[in-house]
């Protein structure tokens, strides 16, 4: 990842957004999905992912489900009703942040 600090504040939004697109996901799957979607540009570190997931779970935005896969147990996360609502808010916040940054970094000059 080129600059982890810039992405840090958006980690929860990224997780929530990914979960809207699939029914349920487990931790490792999330890291891989992000890597795949951003073509390796953004790598979510393991040390940051689980704390974020547990925080979202404690806030009631995520629900968990456990299944036996191969020889082990796998913990899946999925959005709760509140989580779905919060995702919409967070995405809106992120969009307006991107627009603001866009205006600051790349202002469009109007000559008329």
């Amino acid at each position, binding site marked *: 990842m080129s600059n982890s600090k810039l992405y840090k504040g958006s980690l929860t939004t990224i997780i929530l957004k990914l979960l809207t697109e699939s029914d349920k996901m*487990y*931790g*490792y799957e999330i890291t*891989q999905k992000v890597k795949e979607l951003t073509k390796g540009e953004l790598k979510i*570190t*393991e*040390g*940051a992912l*689980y*704390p*974020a997931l*547990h*925080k979202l*779970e*404690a*806030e*009631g935005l995520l629900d*968990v*489900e*456990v299944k*036996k*896969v*191969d*020889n*082990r*147990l*796998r*913990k899946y996360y999925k959005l709760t009703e509140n989580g779905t609502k919060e995702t919409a808010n967070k995405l809106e916040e992120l969009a307006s942040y991107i627009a603001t940054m866009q205006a600051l970094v790349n202002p469009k000059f109007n000559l008329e």
Partner: protein
Amino acid sequence: MKLNKLEIQDLYAFTRKHYVVYYDLQTELVDHLANDIEAMWEEQPQLSFEDAKTKAFKKFGIFGFMEPIEQKQKAMNKRYMRYLWTELKKWFALPQIVITITMFLAFYLAFTTDYAIYFVFGFYILIAVWSGYKGVHLKRQFKKRKEVSDKKWMLEEMIFRQASGSSFFLLLQLHNVFNVSDGFSDNNYIVLSVASIFTFLVLISYISLELLPGKAEELINETYPEFSL
């Protein structure tokens, strides 16, 4: 290539060695490490299990599992407080509010009599003794549970071992009560607040030491879907 049962056991031991004591977090981290190791094996089938494990662990950064452990603790505290709060709210709605009001009035009346200060001491000691007794009883119950299964669950520990914590914390805060002079019953505001504090203390103690432990099974199952697996 998939990890076998022995290797999974080894990963559980590995998380324990790195101070992950609770089973739910161990399970999640074991699955993560296992997935990563299996992915590595697809590209380098000759890589040994030990080397792959070390590589997978390194990705957690220099603090290893510390951050997930800390955050999990915070998240579980939050969950416990939410359960406490949900129960507490019920005592301010019908029908329980009748009991709350009656209790408050009883405290209030007792604290406006000439024997106010004795009542304060009396109730304080009563609550402290009951909380102490329940706390010891719950710890014993917890020990018995652990004889059946040695898996550790953070919420279970909170319900059984730390339950008396909130009561004693409040009791300690209340030592100010003893600094109140004999004539405190003349000041209506002080009497009102002391009566409110006592009502609150009784409710919190009853919820954390009686109600939540009674519902332990239900709460633990709700929190950990793997508990019953």
